[in-house]
């Protein structure tokens, strides 16, 4: 058990069961699951599709309520309300199409009632940081998918969250863009000192970015193993050529292969 100064968030025997809907049986999506997130670490979660990765993130974000167990963020229970200090970036494009890039990034700050001068300062900084300065006056429709995701990341970043939750944020992007965005994410993580929880289905992404990788089982998801990568804090996408990176991804795959087959088998039998 981690002591309270390094412990940032904790799942204690958390389960999530989605109640029966319209003749369908209830779905046991997650758990019982335990996880300690340490302050300032980069933690990735991988698992077969449908294993409850996103459910885990929604629980921690307060967007969903655990059926059983307890969830703590900075020592306080999380249940159904988004705690202060948490920022979330979703896989889908969550930029507001009616606002310019600048106004999109400023949106959350204005909601929080931050004064105009401070909004300008933080938004200009975040837009510069995310390489969006030339597009500040553009609307999201004029940008590529990768750029729109940067807008969403910048919008989260300006709120200075202490815990950033990312739900497959690069899932809709091509491989090259993913690698570059990964580098940006590492830079952002180092600069902000925030704790990052990344949900991903890409093993190489998890292996490259994280301090620790949690491998989840097929549904109901729980952690089969948590691997420590041992990367230095100063790192970037070049570590993909490190032999240790290859060993790590093959270890991840050997852990996941069986679970993925099981998950696929479940889906096949459910369809039959």
């Amino acid at each position, binding site marked *: 058990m981690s002591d309270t100064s390094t412990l940032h968030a904790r799942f204690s025997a958390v389960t999530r069961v989605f109640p029966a809907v319209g003749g369908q049986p209830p779905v046991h999506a997650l758990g019982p699951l335990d996880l300690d997130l340490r302050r300032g670490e980069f933690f990735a979660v991988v698992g077969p599709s449908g294993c409850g990765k996103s459910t885990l993130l929604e629980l921690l*974000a307060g967007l969903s309520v655990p059926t059983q167990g307890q969830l703590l963020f900075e020592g306080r229970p999380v249940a159904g309300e*988004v705690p202060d200090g948490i920022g*979330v970036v979703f896989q889908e494009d*969550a930029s507001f*199409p*009616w606002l310019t890039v600048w106004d999109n990034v400023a*949106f959350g700050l204005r909601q929080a009632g931050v004064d105009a001068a401070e909004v300008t300062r933080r938004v200009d900084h975040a837009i510069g940081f995310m390489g969006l300065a030339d597009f500040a006056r553009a*609307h*999201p429709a004029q940008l590529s998918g990768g750029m729109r995701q940067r807008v969403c990341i910048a919008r989260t970043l300006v709120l200075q969250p202490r815990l950033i939750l990312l739900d497959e944020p690069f899932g809709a992007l091509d491989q090259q863009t993913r690698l570059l965005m990964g580098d940006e994410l590492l830079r952002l993580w180092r600069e902000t000192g925030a704790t990052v929880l990344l949900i991903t289905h890409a093993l190489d992404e998890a292996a490259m970015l994280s301090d620790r990788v949690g491998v989840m089982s097929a549904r109901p998801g729980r952690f089969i193993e948590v691997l420590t990568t041992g990367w230095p804090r100063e790192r970037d996408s070049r570590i993909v050529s490190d032999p240790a990176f290859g060993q790590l991804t093959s270890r991840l795959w050997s852990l996941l292969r069986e679970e993925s087959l099981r998950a696929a088998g479940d889906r096949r039998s459910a369809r039959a």
Partner: protein
Amino acid sequence: MTSALWIRFALVVGSVLLLEVLCRTGVIQPVTMIPPSRMASGLIGLFQNGKVYPPLVKTMGNVATAFVLSVGVGFLMGLLIHAFPRVRRALDPFLASYYAVPFFVFYPLLIVIFGMNDLPIVVIGFLFGVVAMLLNTLNGLDRVARVLLKTGRVLRMGRVRTALQIRLPAAAPYLLTGVKLSVAYSFIGVIASEFILSGAGLGYTIAYAFNNFDNLTMYSLMLLVLVIVVAINSVLHVWEQRMLRQRGLLRQG
């Protein structure tokens, strides 16, 4: 201008010119129709002698009232019904078959209820417009991406703020479609009612001119109605196109 615009422009100008020629050469008799140029000069005359103002003011007032009511009530009812899915499921067949009802048959009833004044006319204009607005409000709210609402929750926005700052702007293009239809339906409802049973307004004045073989006044006023409706619709159309283009929902050559 794109080629589509050119074709459209040529079509309108060509039709007007053709009518002009047909009327001037006597192919179309003056008792049937007068040349478009005379309609225009007749309309200018009506403005100069001031005869157009009382019916114009009356009709525009009624249309504006019917329009504002149908947009306001349609939007609020849309919001409300959207918030209660069960109520919505119950109402669905009524809403779907609403425009199958010929409202004008209720005119006698409306006169009994509201009396012989502008109110029955406004009510018919309102009845025509309100459900178009309601249906488009529902459609717009249905199309608000879930991830935007989740973003609102993450930003810890309350229900009212989310409605005003996320749902409303996200649904705006669809709401604007509702507004466009409501304008058109309010005009139809009001002017048609004035035709049937009214002692004032553009509809009444057109019908009166028709009964008195006053083709000049009749066609001039028809032209006026067309000009007004096209002008209002063009403004809304430009606004709508700009909104769609801004959101990348419009692919135009």
